[in-house]
């Protein structure tokens, strides 16, 4: 793999706190290696800003291996940048060329208010999980793990849905700021497994109710969520959520 260095222009959203109206600032960055990750490029810029006596850019990040779901940058109009099935932290600078201009914004959604610069508050997702995104089993209640065989295909589908990292890219990409892919993934993960079956009706109803309460928009099946999801969560999960929700709504016993 050939490596190269580049000079770039960054336009970054700066917002002091939740009450500030915010604005873009333009920064030149020099001698960026194609081997750096996108966040390492931001690290370089931040070190420079600190040395110049300015405030570094605040952004969420933690594992930097694409699994914790904390990083959340809206890069040139796309959550997590140009690569498919990718998080911001795993985006590498070989995606860019010398002279490029890159615009970096936070997730934009009413349900995800900005805390500072590129950081947003995604606690709405935790509250949706609290509404029913679990199986009610206390520690110590369990039977032997092999007592309930589960068809491999179903288990694989449940795993594919459970791979959601809760980053919120789906919401950020959606023109309606809908959280249907996030909720659909959790409802699917648990509905596909026999363990999740007893609570499936209430789970679908309560999670959707909480989603609406948090101010996420409705789904219009545009598919932008699936296109940007770093874990490739399929839009089929939204269809399954709709089925689960409808069946729950139509039945007497919950």
């Amino acid at each position, binding site marked *: 793999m050939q490596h190269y260095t580049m000079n770039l222009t960054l336009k970054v959203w700066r917002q002091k*706190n939740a009450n500030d109206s915010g604005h873009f600032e333009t920064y030149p960055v020099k001698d960026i290696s194609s081997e750096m990750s996108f966040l390492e490029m931001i690290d370089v810029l931040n070190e420079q800003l600190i040395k110049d006596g300015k405030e570094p850019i605040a952004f969420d990040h933690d*594992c930097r291996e694409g699994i914790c779901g904390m990083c959340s940058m809206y890069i040139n109009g796309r959550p997590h940048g140009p690569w498919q099935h990718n998080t911001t932290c795993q985006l590498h600078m070989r995606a860019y060329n010398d002279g490029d201009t890159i615009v970096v914004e936070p997730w934009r959604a009413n349900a995800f208010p900005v805390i500072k610069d590129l950081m947003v508050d995604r606690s709405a997702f*935790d509250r949706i999980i609290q509404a029913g995104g679990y*199986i009610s089993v206390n520690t110590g209640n369990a039977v032997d793990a092999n007592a309930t065989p589960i068809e491999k295909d179903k288990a694989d589908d449940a795993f594919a849905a459970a791979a959601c990292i809760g980053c919120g890219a789906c919401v950020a990409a959606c023109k309606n700021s809908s959280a249907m892919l996030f909720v659909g993934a959790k409802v699917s993960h648990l509905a596909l497994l026999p363990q999740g079956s007893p609570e499936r009706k209430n789970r679908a109803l309560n999670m959707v109710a909480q989603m609406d309460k948090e101010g996420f928009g409705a789904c219009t099946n545009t598919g932008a969520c699936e296109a940007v999801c770093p874990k490739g969560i399929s839009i089929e999960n939204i269809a399954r959520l709709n089925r689960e929700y409808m069946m729950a709504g139509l039945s007497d016993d919950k």
Partner: protein
Amino acid sequence: MLDSKIPSGTLDQKWTSYKGHCKLVNPANKRKLEVIVVGTGLAGASAAASLGELGYQVKAFCFQDSPRRAHSIAAQGGINAAKNYQNDGDSVYRLFYDTIKGGDYRAREANVHRLAEVSVNIIDQCVAQGVPFAREYGGLLNNRSFGGTQVKRTFYAAGQTGQQLLIGAYQALERQVALGNVTMHTRHEMLDVVVIDGKARGIICRNLVTGELERHFGHAVLLCTGGYGNVFYLSTNAMGSNVTAAWKAHKKGAYFANPCFTQIHPTCIPVSGDHQSKLTLMSESLRNDGRIWVPAKAGDKRPANDIPEEERDYFLERRYPAFGNLVPRDVASRAAKERCDAGYGVGTTGQAVYLDFKYNLINKYGKAEANKQGIQHPDTDTLIRLGKEVVKEEYGNLFDMYEKITGENPYEVPMRIYPAVHYTMGGLWVDYELMTSVKGLYALGEANFSDHGANRLGASALMQGLADGYFVIPYTIGNYLADEIATKPIPTDHPAFIEAEQQAADRINKLISINGTKTVESFHKRLGKIMWDQCGMARSEKGLTKAIEEIRQLKKEFWSDVKIPGSVNEMNPELDKAGRVADFIELGELMCIDALDRNESCGGHFREESQTEEGEALRDDQQYAYVAAWAYQSENNWQLNKEPLTFEVAKPSQRSYK
């Protein structure tokens, strides 16, 4: 004076006997007792959820924006359990024995046996929660093998086992939040433990969004705050992983045990340049299917695929024929370093070895799949194609991650890997009940020292985190809290709370007022280099003595020349980082002091002065079969307390994987 409170009785009866005799708290009294849980990874989330279910009032804290972000999420390969579903000879005793031996006889027998016993319950619990482990076509759970063992006992969910287990524990935690049994405080960092009359009674923490300091009372405090691998700057830990909570507890009287026991993981993506902010692990489970090699000729710069079979040196298979590529992590790491130091390393830096999947793609997976599909006499291309499909299912996410980081396709060319800091076996000293040397202050998961000795076997960290949280602390905390039912909640205007908050505020104000010339990051990098060079894969008296001096100097410089932008009463990630790095610097000194004291090679600790003629690690049971529990006295001054290790069942022998 170090009482590990090991129950009497035979090893396999200790835990049963403890559970049968420990004190209980009745349900009405549980509701009056408040428990603080710091950290929400596998240990913290499982403890908070389980204690909430029991009826305690739990307050949980994490520095991330959600408990689901904790770094347990990044664990890839799997979780061990002595289920023996594969009928290949596994048992509780085998898991216990492998863990003690893998830890090079520096762990406590009773704790490890308990861990092996509850391992089977963990798998049951996780499956009941809906954790989607890998399954066979018959619908039953699948297993894979891992380094340091000869049975298949590892349960997994592709290369995302930690994620799935953490999501399970997180969901159980959120359920308790919804029920009102747990109050969750996200974006909060613990800055001190409040100790009143010799007992932990609360914490001081900083709200990372507003910058405000807060006081929280608890009848007991649980630290589930993970490991301190980031003392090396570059490690596989998350950027935010830090030692601050454990370090503050240490300075308030909790002993720090075996701080120098660090795990250097053999299979990580090599460093690419100075900009590197962290390292990424490639799961050890890949060693099941990948063969590790370097060119047989030093300095051979040909592309990997151009080097013919007979000019390759599969050095692990050569040196350790019995375990081959599945030797424990410490052995594999040192062997890779040895080859690279001798000039056989590959890649631009020469600090890498190959991990090659081609052989098993063809011979293991390709042939099995061809058989299944009834393809007679398949050619190599067909075998590779079929093999790729299976490998994709097993490790797809890891291969994708490797390609994103390096730009190379590991299905086509061998991965380049090199050892990196991954896990810290050392941590806060705890007794059998997981209580530190401060009453009412507990440490769970990677934050404590107890189960992995000098080297942790693969797929054991997840097991320990969940064992402590789901199945140990719910019993042992009752034994303490049963005597606390008459203790009323202490108001947080108690002088001890005021004093602890004042100290935290003073330190923050001091940091921000230095206004020097160097960034926090630059100090962290320098500390990391000292630690990696002198307290990393190989240590010597000379190097460690030098490192201690350098760290003391670095500390002076930090406290006189660090530059932190912004102010105190706002969100200020640089300020948070400065506090963490200041604590890492102090810990780094203690790690080197501990490494200097231990003049033996054991597990992850390789002392150059203590090796066999063949260059293998030489343990010294006569002098060093103890846990080194350090008590903080004053700046640069610690007192060593030794907890002797006795082995009644697993008699120490020199480890051999040959």
